[in-house]
């Protein structure tokens, strides 16, 4: 069953058009990626799904209902969780407050604090620190943890491994598998192709403002030509 569907979505910043007809489908429970070179429009796609950018044209539907043009907080309340590239941690909120924030808006809680702190012991230790005092890695952990806490159904993750030490990248990989195991759906934006291949079951390749190729993980790993042509790997 399709959870998220984008049909011919066009989006632009002021003058420059970035998305020129993105079509994409994600089934419930899938973990799929959105791959593409720098500036291909991956972040723009996530922002458009989240309602932070209003598409010029096209349709977006979530769980069978149209969400095109809804404000971000309405989309979040439907169960879409967003972890932006720059993490979006509130510097003047404590770690606990940051962690609880989305569940206040959504009114439902997902993962228990115990489970979250089991995966991210650093967050437990730093619970009363302000967001401004966290390292980049800690911010990333917190950004993911707070989405899990709020019981979202779809996660939009923008380059979660960017700038993280190998050990932490591994943790994020474990978390993603755990998330998938509990039935959540994930749209993952990644530059790290190796990591993407370890966790995802399907890949969507964004090029020239469109999804030019979509394939299973096995196909993608075999097809070095695609990797080379669209991603420059």
């Amino acid at each position, binding site marked *: 069953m399709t959870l998220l569907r984008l049909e011919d979505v066009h989006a632009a910043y002021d003058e420059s058009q970035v998305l020129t007809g993105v079509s994409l489908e994600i089934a419930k429970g899938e973990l799929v990626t959105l791959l593409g070179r720098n500036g291909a429009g991956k972040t723009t796609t996530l922002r458009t799904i989240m309602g932070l950018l209003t598409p010029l044209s096209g349709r977006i539907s979530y769980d069978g209902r149209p969400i095109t043009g809804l404000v*971000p*907080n309405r989309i*979040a309340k439907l169960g879409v969780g967003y972890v932006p590239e720059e993490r979006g941690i509130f*510097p003047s*909120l404590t770690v606990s*407050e940051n962690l609880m924030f989305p569940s206040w808006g*959504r009114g439902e809680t997902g993962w228990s604090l115990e489970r979250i702190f089991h995966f991210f012991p650093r967050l437990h230790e730093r619970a009363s620190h302000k967001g401004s005092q966290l390292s980049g890695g800690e911010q990333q952990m917190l950004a993911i943890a707070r989405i899990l806490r709020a019981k979202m159904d779809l996660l939009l993750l923008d380059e979660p491994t960017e700038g993280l030490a190998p050990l932490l990248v591994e943790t994020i990989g474990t978390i993603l598998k755990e998330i998938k195991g509990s039935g959540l759906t994930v749209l993952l934006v990644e530059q790290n192709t190796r990591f993407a291949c370890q966790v995802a079951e399907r890949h969507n390749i964004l090029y020239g403002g469109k999804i030019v190729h979509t394939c299973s993980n096995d196909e993608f790993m075999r097809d070095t030509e695609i990797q080379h042509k669209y991603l420059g790997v």
Partner: protein
Amino acid sequence: MEPVFLFSQFFNGLVLGCIYVLLSLGLTVVFGTLGVVNFAHGALYMLGAYAAYTVATHLQLNFLACLILCPVIVAVIGMVLEKLLISKLYKLPHYYNLLLTFGLMFIIQDAIKIFFGPEGEPFNIPDLLQGAINLGFMYYPKYRLFILIVTAMLSGGLWLFIEKTRLGAIIRAGTDNAEMADALGTNISWTFTLIFGLGAGLSGLAGVLAAPIQNVQPAMGMDILVQTFVVVIIGGMGSIGGSILAGLVIGQILTFSIVFWPPGSTTLIYAFMALVLVTRPRGFFGRVSFFE
């Protein structure tokens, strides 16, 4: 010069500072969160004073009732203005709202002139707070002491509210990164309305407290607005602690310059502002954006 005289001037400075603190708190919170430089802030202060006058004189209610009722009235007026007008301009450059609130200031001021006349209204210190109290080392007017206590309690309460409550955390989040707060499921537009109402209510409260010691007249808001901006800028735009400190410092500078050097009393605070800005361009505690 007698120490008692200096002490009483110091207290006068504190009281004046308190009015600035209350006024600048609202202005700075609204700027820090909504990014709106609210020129109508002084007019809301004036509305608070006129609301107190109306409630006390025409409705014959006591001062305590004024103190509770009038800030709420002004807060509601502020929320209506935000919802109907100010919120429509958030997506546009800052100066749109600057011009809008500048216009609102004159509209509110002239509306008051039409209803109440341009002269101003008498407002007496409530009976219970008349006279002076013996502090041991000097006598000091009860009412002024009352302003000090109310401001101290309110500043403490506001700090607790913003730092320790869930709504306070949402307000902080809205200040940090409104877009992210929205994307995480908070209806940020109502939060903004609430914040504007809070700022307006604080301004209204300052108006009620100032009514018995200043003239209740249509231009009172415009007169105090510029000094309030000075306080906010010195304290650091968006900083609560900065506003409190700067408000008290400006109160002292104004009071003591009137005593020791009257000709300089109007310019000294601007010289002080220039000095602060040269050494600390963001004011005392101006916010440094986390990802700056």
